[in-house]
């Protein structure tokens, strides 16, 4: 497909073919024309112009108005289906860009919150505030029914945990806020990075929710919280009842959040030790 003139001629030919045969072969020709037009960089306006010219030519050649209108509708739809794929791709990319912009804004804001939290009056209060912020912002960033942030995985750090859940997911949140998540955390340890799975096989059924019922959590993504030297001290988990609710991109966002949360925890620890040393 070199240009508009060639496309126009091929479009008129597809319409003539469909008027004559009315079968799938002509529809497929139109669908291929649409693909070729997209590849050649033609636009919807070019298709509209070719469509108009082809209909006028068909009527001039003696086709009945009803037959020409019906056939033209079929051929037009088929040709536009390739443009529909393109348009949906553009909408998807626009949504992704908007999501990324929102993530960046939230992370910038969180950076300030975490700096304030590191300076809380007591070390314990500071740790809880940081974990609470991390759990809350994790849910804000990637969605999900419930997020849990905890530390104490290294047995040196005093255990603490915070959970955040959507108001209409209180039952799921209540189950997971206090649940034993260690079977899931073993998987994060073995993978050493982002873990993304259906958690039902590893979680206690009382925490995961009943079997295949709609109350059960079917999606889970988790990452490590670490010391500055890379030693793991805890985890950020996100859960949802929808299957495959999280993507690897959500895992990347959680990793970024974990880096900020880890640094804030380290700072809080440092301030607390300095305060203790007088």
């Amino acid at each position, binding site marked *: 497909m070199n240009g508009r003139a060639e496309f126009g001629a091929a479009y008129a030919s597809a319409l003539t073919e469909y008027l004559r045969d009315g079968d*799938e*072969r002509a*529809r*497929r020709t139109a*669908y291929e024309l649409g*693909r070729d037009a*997209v*590849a050649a960089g033609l636009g919807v306006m070019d298709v509209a112009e070719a469509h108009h010219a082809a209909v006028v030519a068909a009527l001039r050649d003696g086709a009945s108005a009803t037959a020409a209108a019906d056939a033209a*509708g*079929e051929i037009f*739809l*088929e040709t536009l*289906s*390739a443009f*529909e*794929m*393109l348009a*949906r*791709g*553009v909408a*998807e990319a626009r949504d992704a860009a908007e999501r990324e912009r929102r993530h960046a804004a939230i992370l910038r804001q969180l950076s300030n919150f975490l700096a304030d939290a590191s300076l809380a009056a007591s070390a314990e209060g500071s740790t809880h505030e940081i974990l609470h912020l991390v759990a809350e912002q994790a849910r804000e960033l990637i969605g999900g029914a419930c997020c849990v942030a905890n530390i104490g995985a290294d047995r040196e750090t005093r255990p603490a945990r915070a959970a955040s859940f959507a108001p209409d997911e209180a039952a799921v949140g209540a189950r997971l806020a206090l649940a034993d998540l260690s079977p899931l955390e073993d998987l994060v340890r073995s993978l050493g990075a982002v873990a993304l799975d259906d958690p039902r096989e590893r979680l206690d059924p009382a925490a995961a929710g009943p079997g295949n019922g709609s109350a059960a959590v079917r999606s889970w993504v988790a990452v490590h919280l670490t010391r500055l030297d890379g030693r793991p001290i805890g985890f950020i988990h996100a859960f949802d009842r929808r299957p495959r609710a999280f993507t*690897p991109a959500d895992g990347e966002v959680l990793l970024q959040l974990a880096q900020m949360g880890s640094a804030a925890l380290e700072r809080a620890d440092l301030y607390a030790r300095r305060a203790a040393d007088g």
Partner: protein
Amino acid sequence: MRDEVRIAIAADADLLPARAEGRALAERQGFSRTDATLIATAISEVARNIVVHVGRGEIVLQALDEDARRGVLVIARDDGPGIWDVERAIQGYTNSSGPGLGLGLPGARRLMDEFELDSEPGTGTTVKMIKWRSRDELELLRERRRQRERSG
């Protein structure tokens, strides 16, 4: 009985029966002309993927009937070398290049309501995709009346 059709895909010409069967099933399931066209397009894209990248495979079409909705399930299956990076393939990246035009597998994914790609190197590829349409109250009432008439 479940409405199921299998079409062997071995050449470009096989896209034609796959599209025709998909469109016919979509019409039987009550989809609009526009949605039937989108289903036929999605079938073309996954069938083309088989022809271009593997050479041989099959398309299975199945009607789905639930209380509140009706659907068309499309399964495209091949025994080819599989896809190394499924996530990138779904996003439309080709080999080491940047994103393509958004046709092919990502295009099919965007036209359908559900899309799953299952593939590992050496084990072939299976794409499952579904298009749904909701059944409104009027349609449900009509069906209940038909059932009553049949049984009465």
